[in-house]
């Protein structure tokens, strides 16, 4: 990639994206996609019964939803974009050029959603009766629709970015949307969001109602009924999703290494899905039969399960993900497929702007190797800390003793053919040698590397520079 490199060595670039994305999903699913229709329905119910206390309770719950979705919810959504653009500007920049109108539409939907959230909450106490109340419930319905639409589009775009589309041939967004797991995944996410929204609203009820009040009992009943109903599509879409995933894997991942890990992942997925479903059902049934029985903390259990499930769920991307940001066009380190031969012949350093050395010499070998690491590996690996540290990866393979040069060289030269999730090495033999020198140095001296955001150390041109670009 030909941008200054933002690099979080102590933490890992990918962890940053994972955290922001996870927070967003955990808020967006139960609190926006799931909770708005539930709250709207309950508002409608309260109006039918003419119950002012019920209505006020729903207002309070909406207050919490309003605060959370307009702050953490909305901002982490923007944050996903911020972080990915920071870490993979070449990828986001290219995707934007292809899908500008899709993102533009997504933006308009997002604006509408936020505007509707504000109208829904801020007019609650003003539009209390008659046609105004009907209008208010209507706004709630519209809001529910837009929240779902946002998720629908986002999941499609993410699905596409994760590399299941046949973009180079078709070059349309639809190939991303209609990849084989999109619809089952959407069904799963929808019913999951609805079910967990029930849990969340239930949890909130306890803060806003008195312990033995009739209001609490009735509200818990209502929410339990909602959860019970949604557990049916939840179960169905879980099975559906679980069944289509292996096919999608086979179509996208042609490597055996994955099959073992995948088999493991797939089994665990079934177990977590089943436990979550049982917990949801159990809570719903007890809630219906004995609304007072379940203590507040117990509600957290299915919720935590849900969090675990979503986390596990996200890992499927690791499997589907090819070494590409954009299938068959650009690898995740920003190297285009078409420019690979140039780099493999001339080396990548002569064509990289933001590196110290543009050619490898015997005098600068380790430093140039560090440049090679930054340009070719650092989008996916840290040096020596975090979950995907390159030193640890090599130690897993070759042990903690001094590594064998020939083995390292062979590894780098064939990193793509033996592990198709990694791109081919985009450099020449001289750079492979420099990289191995750096890696061996790194093994001895585990030094953290700071990215461009922490400032450059400037060296002057007239200082003995051994090679010129």
């Amino acid at each position, binding site marked *: 990639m030909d941008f*200054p490199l933002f690099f979080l060595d102590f933490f890992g670039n990918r962890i940053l994206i994972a955290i922001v994305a996870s927070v967003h999903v955990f808020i967006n699913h139960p609190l926006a996609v799931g909770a708005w229709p539930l709250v709207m329905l309950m508002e409608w119910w309260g109006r039918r019964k003419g119950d002012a206390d019920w209505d006020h309770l729903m207002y309070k719950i909406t207050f919490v939803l309003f605060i959370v979705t307009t702050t953490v919810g909305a901002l982490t959504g923007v944050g996903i974009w911020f972080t990915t653009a920071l870490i993979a500007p070449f990828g986001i920049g290219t995707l934007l*050029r292809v899908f500008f109108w899709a993102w*533009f539409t997504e*933006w308009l939907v997002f*604006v509408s959603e936020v505007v509707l959230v504000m109208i829904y909450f801020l007019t609650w106490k003003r539009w209390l009766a008659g046609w105004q109340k009907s209008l208010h419930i209507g706004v709630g319905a519209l809001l529910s629709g837009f929240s779902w639409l946002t998720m629908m589009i986002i999941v499609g775009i993410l699905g596409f970015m994760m590399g299941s589309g046949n973009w180079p041939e078709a070059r349309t967004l639809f190939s991303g949307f209609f990849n084989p797991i999109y619809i089952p995944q959407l069904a799963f996410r929808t019913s999951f969001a609805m079910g967990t929204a029930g849990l969340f609203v239930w949890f909130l009820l306890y803060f806003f109602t008195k312990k033995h009040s009739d209001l609490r009992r009735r509200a818990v009943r209502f929410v339990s009924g909602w959860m019970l109903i949604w557990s049916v599509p939840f179960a169905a879409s879980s099975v559906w999703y679980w069944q289509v995933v292996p096919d999608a894997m086979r179509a996208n991942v042609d*490597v055996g290494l994955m099959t073992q890990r995948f088999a493991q992942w797939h089994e665990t997925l079934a177990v977590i899905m089943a436990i979550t479903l049982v917990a949801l059902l159990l809570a719903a049934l007890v809630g219906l039969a004995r609304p007072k029985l379940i203590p507040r903390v117990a509600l957290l259990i299915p919720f935590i399960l849900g969090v675990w499930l979503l986390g596990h769920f996200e890992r499927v991307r690791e499997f589907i993900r090819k070494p590409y940001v954009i299938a068959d066009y650009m690898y995740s380190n920003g190297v285009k497929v078409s420019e690979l031969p140039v780099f493999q012949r001339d080396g990548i350093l002569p064509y990289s702007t933001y590196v110290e050395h543009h050619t490898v010499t015997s005098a600068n070998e380790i430093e140039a190797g560090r440049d090679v690491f930054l340009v070719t590996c650092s989008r996916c690996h840290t040096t020596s800390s975090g979950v995907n540290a390159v030193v640890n990866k090599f130690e897993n393979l070759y042990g903690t003793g001094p590594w064998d040069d020939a*083995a390292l060289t062979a590894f780098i030269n064939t990193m793509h053919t*033996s592990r198709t999730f990694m791109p081919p090495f985009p450099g020449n033999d001289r750079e492979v040698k420099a990289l191995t020198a750096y890696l061996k140095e790194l093994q001895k001296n585990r030094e953290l590397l700071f990215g461009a955001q922490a400032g450059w150390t400037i060296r002057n041109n007239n200082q003995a520079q051994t090679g010129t670009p």
Partner: protein
Amino acid sequence: MRHLVLFAQAVPVPRDLELPLPIGEWELKLILVLLFLVHIFFVNLMVGGSLLSVFFEILGLTRPRYDSLAKKIAETITVNKSLAVVLGVGPLLCINLVYTIHFYSANALTGYAWFAIIPLVIFAFLFAYLHKYTWQIWTGGRKRLHVITGGFSAFLFLCIPLIFLTNINLMLFPGKWAEVGGFFSSLQIGNVFPRYFHFLSASLALTGLFLAGWFGRRKFPREKHLPDFTRVELRRLFYRVAFYVSLAQLVFGPLLLFTLPGVGVTGTLYWVILSGAAVVLIVLHILWRQIKMPDEKISRLYIPIWMLFGVVVLLMGTGRHVYREACLVEHKQMIADETARFNAIELATQMSIRAGMGAGEALGGGMTGEKVFQNCAACHAVDRVLAAPSLREVYSLYKDNPAGIVAWSKNPGKKRPQFAPMPSFAHLGDEKLTLVADYILEIASGADSAKSEPSD
């Protein structure tokens, strides 16, 4: 701990992305400028609102009627701040497209601060809500805590535009990128602070004008919310805010203009900015007349004042764009040349590969067992254990059975607990795998091979 090293080169000239823009560059720039103005309008109201709210709340400590005014101002922030954020995404999409290289580079160079925008906005919003919804609760002894809460949220609101502005500024000066050491050092590049103060006073002026209309409108239930003020009083008060702050722009404006780094300063820029300034003078004059008006006439020119302000904003926005273009025109050309140069190399390389392929590879003549073995050499060696059993061991297992090696490589099992699993090589295909199987058996068939026993 090591920082990246860069040789101090004059101007970095990177390659651009290859794909064309989705729509014409001019259309995109037009959309960018327009969407940006809508966004910045709400940003102004958000920042100005939170500053004024805190200001009047402090005033209200001694003069209680200003406290209710401060509360009503705080309530306007709820909607304005959310619109500011969501409406910001559109122009951000556009600027990402039009200035991909420059914008992303500036983002990376100020990476920590740039990312910090997300948590900063979240906390600014949360504190703004806390400020608004505890107004009636944190009274008496806790009033001070309440003011501090508002002050903190206003402080966060002040940080966010500074980070944005620093990025937009930094992207204009690629010649300085090599000197930048993160966010704080990039504050010294160009004229960040004059721009920032200009932005702040514009925010206060626009908010003043907005509030003059918001509280001064007929439908505003003033008797209920602000019984201690008359409508005219409110109008005049906020006209005054708008007036005095705009007066300050007569200092900040020229300061900004004359501290602009020379690269982008052109005649056109002067014309645009000076016409903007001329309109400001007209607005100032009208505002002054309004403030001095008798009560019954004060509301009449509200809409025309907004229209004039609109013209100012449009001219200043255009000026900013003209400057940006002039700054970058040369560098953009250098990037385009560099990209074209590289594309030519890329094309030539592909042609020569295609030509070369015809002779050797296509006939299959180039592939040997030794070459294919490169795929295995990362883990397997003849006598040593790298990350897998040695080839001697493989030999003892598959001596007369190369097909067994092929079958295993296509679908490896898991036998030895001390190793990570071997990846499948099914994608190499039978032909290559047969070559490599023969090759392995050949190189591993040393004299002492009979000695090694299968390990399991």
